[in-house]
């Protein structure tokens, strides 16, 4: 296969293989470790009978590869889970059951995921605008006062811990000025306006801190592209500096920005614990911390898989974006 279609096919296959590899790794780490997996999964307060039942559901009697196959089957096709007295169907993607909460893991994640996605999506838009904008401006105004101010602000942004900035903003904006409400998550489906209004402050604090690396990266990449020969060509043909910066230099500088963004988005979905805790947003990060604290093994496993899924997908999307931006990638 060649051309863009072939590239997409190769990249998709690569993504699937990576996801499978992650699932093997996660399964082995959590379910093939020494110790009584059934006891750990069930929690410290389980009776021996309950532990026995969990052991059966996890098919601990089977060899490891069969157990993994069963686990994978659940994710792809769903499975029936017997709780002794009744049989509950767990539809695909089935990540098992939290024995401590007596809830399906998929359900737990699905209630938390919209919160995390909302937070990251909005913050991403802002950090791209602020970060890339700052980077472009400071490359363009290199050596002038504007650049020095922007570089200083970038450094400050880099050095500020997210909880400090968030806390200060919250006290000032919500407490003293009362411009925004103290954030409280409202579903997008319930009331889009309140959703945005409540998330505005978390978005802004998250983005201000995350924008710093983008600003630096964009500035460096822009300066590199601006020194290239083809930029000189367009200068020598009377193309205005603004067109050169926006149309030619920024285009060339986008590749590393796309890559960094993929990494940030992927890890922010599960890793924005500080943000979520600070603003009281019930997202994936908070739930993961809770599950780890009470050693709720199925929930931890499921969460780690979901976070891994987003990191891989974000990177795959970035690769496709690369190829759309620069067709030479397809050839490599």
């Amino acid at each position, binding site marked *: 296969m060649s051309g863009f279609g072939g590239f997409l096919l190769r990249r998709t296959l690569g993504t699937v293989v990576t996801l499978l590899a992650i699932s093997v790794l996660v399964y082995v780490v959590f379910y093939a470790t020494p110790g009584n997996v059934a006891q750990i999964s069930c929690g410290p307060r389980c009776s021996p009978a309950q532990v026995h039942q969990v052991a059966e559901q996890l098919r601990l009697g089977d060899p490891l590869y069969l157990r993994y196959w069963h686990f994978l089957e659940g994710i792809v096709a769903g499975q029936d889970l017997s709780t002794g007295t009744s049989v509950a169907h767990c539809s695909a993607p089935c990540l098992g059951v939290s024995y401590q909460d007596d809830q399906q893991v998929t359900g737990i994640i699905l209630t938390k995921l919209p919160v995390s996605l909302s937070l990251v999506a909005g913050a991403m838009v802002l950090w791209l605008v602020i970060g890339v904008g700052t980077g472009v401006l400071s490359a363009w105004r290199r050596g002038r006062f504007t650049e020095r101010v922007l570089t200083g602000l970038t450094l400050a942004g880099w050095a500020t811990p997210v909880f400090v900035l968030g806390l200060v903003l919250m006290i000032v904006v919500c407490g003293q000025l009362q411009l925004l409400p103290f954030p409280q998550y409202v579903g997008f489906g319930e009331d889009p306006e309140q959703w945005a209004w409540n998330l505005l402050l978390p978005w802004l604090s998250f983005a201000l801190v995350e924008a710093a690396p983008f600003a630096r990266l964009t500035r460096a990449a822009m300066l590199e592209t601006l020194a290239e020969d083809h930029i000189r060509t367009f200068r020598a043909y009377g193309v205005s500096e603004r067109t050169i910066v926006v149309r030619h230099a920024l285009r060339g500088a986008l590749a590393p920005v796309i890559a960094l963004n993929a990494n940030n988005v992927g890890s922010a979905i599960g890793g924005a614990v500080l943000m979520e805790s600070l603003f009281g947003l019930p997202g994936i990060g908070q739930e993961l911390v809770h599950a780890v604290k009470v050693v709720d093994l199925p929930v931890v496993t499921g969460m780690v898989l979901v976070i891994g899924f987003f990191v891989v997908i974000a990177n795959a999307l970035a690769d496709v974006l690369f190829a759309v931006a620069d*067709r030479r990638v397809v050839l490599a």
Partner: protein
Amino acid sequence: MSLVDVSGLTVEFGALRAVDGLSFTLEKGAALALVGESGSGKSTVAGALLGLHRGTGARVGGTVRVAGTDVGAASEQELRRLRGAGAAMVFQDPLSSLDPYYAVGDQIAEVLRVHGRISRRAARARAVEVLDRVGIPDAARRARSRPHEFSGGMRQRALIAMSLACSPDLLIADEPTTALDVTVQAQILDLLHTLREETGMGLLLVTHDVGVAAESVDEVLVMRHGRQVEHGPVADVLGRPAHAYTRALLDAVPRLDARRDTSVAGDEVVLEATGLRRRFGRGRRAFDAVDDISLTVRRGETLGVVGESGSGKTTLGRMLVGLLEPTSGTVRHDGRTRTGTDPSVQMVFQDPVSSLNPRRSVGESVADPLRARGEKDERAVRERVTGLLERVGLEAAHYDRYPHEFSGGQRQRVGIARALAAEPRVIVCDEPVSALDVTTQAQVIDLLGELQRELGLALVFIAHDLAVVRQVSDRVLVMRRGRAVESGPADRIYEQPQDPYTRQLLAAVPALDPALAAERRAARREPAVA
């Protein structure tokens, strides 16, 4: 009023005076070449004509008038109007001079839209028109291709098309053919000639290659250290140079008809390759970079290997040294088949800048092969390296200096000293002088000749420059697409070439005599008419 009027132009970068009081004029429709070696300031002059030094920190003095615009006094807006519409520039490296992200046609259309009120569609149509004009086949379709889908020659044609887009009065070409193969160079120079005849635009050609100038212009201005050395009609300057530097420059230019002076070739075979083949890539993308090449090299002999880019000469050289294993075929020397590298076959690389470690002193670099052979005695190492440095025309005190402190020619001498350190019997030189100015080139070639006579070295001299190869070689191998097109004694190959490709290559080399150049251009044009 003249098309270009430069008077007392001075350009300074910090403490360096790159151009020093240069004055010249160029009339409408005329062609002038600025000729000089690297660092002579010729490209700086070209940039000054378009005001490209503005905002770079360079200090520009004197006055420059181009197509009625006073470049020094013009506003940003007036300058932008001049650039592209009044005077357009073609750059040296067609690989990097176009934006890799946009279709070639769109880039030309963009320039058009900067300079006139013209719809997107009309700009695209005009782009196709100029691409067709410069000989891009199937221009309507190729206008949508990105630069990486074009060959080097096609990219240079596309850049020339861009320069034509706004019908400028002046074309400034800064080393337009330096990165191209000799046959493609001839095509581009012919194209520039035809375009000039048709449009009546003036040409300012910047080049280090006297032959290229002889082919293309009416007048020549020789530059050195930012100053004018000599200025006059091309036939006078090249035929009856008045200035000693011009004479030295012309003498250093390798000529196709210059035979090798003395040969010290012996009979003993020191290197023998049989059926060498090297395949790169897999499946349908696989290709043979070198395809069934056999050769022998004798003691004291120089074998020249010539070919255009992609002909497989470097791959061949690397296999001879053992840096690359052949896919099939054998390399033998001293009667045994060799795998991997061997001290008795050494290499001198093309780029003296990147083939020396910038963080180590040159003495240490030259000492590497000695240490690799197990020499432990530091005093002996230093003594031997000092001897080698002196042997290649450097000084003992240079041992502790770093590569950036040396000129290109000196660095190549270090490279040669390093190759000599292992006491080789064969040295494979891969384009050893192509990065050097002609006068430096001549010195390095002389050095290699001396060493050969003294030490009985066998040389494999790989180069794209046919004249240089003629000058140094006893026998010549002509390569094309991985295969040997023709091989034999140098005189026979150059005086009675058998293969049509060899003939084509030789015919494409620029002649130093403008009259002969015009004659050959006419000859090249005839088959196209027929």
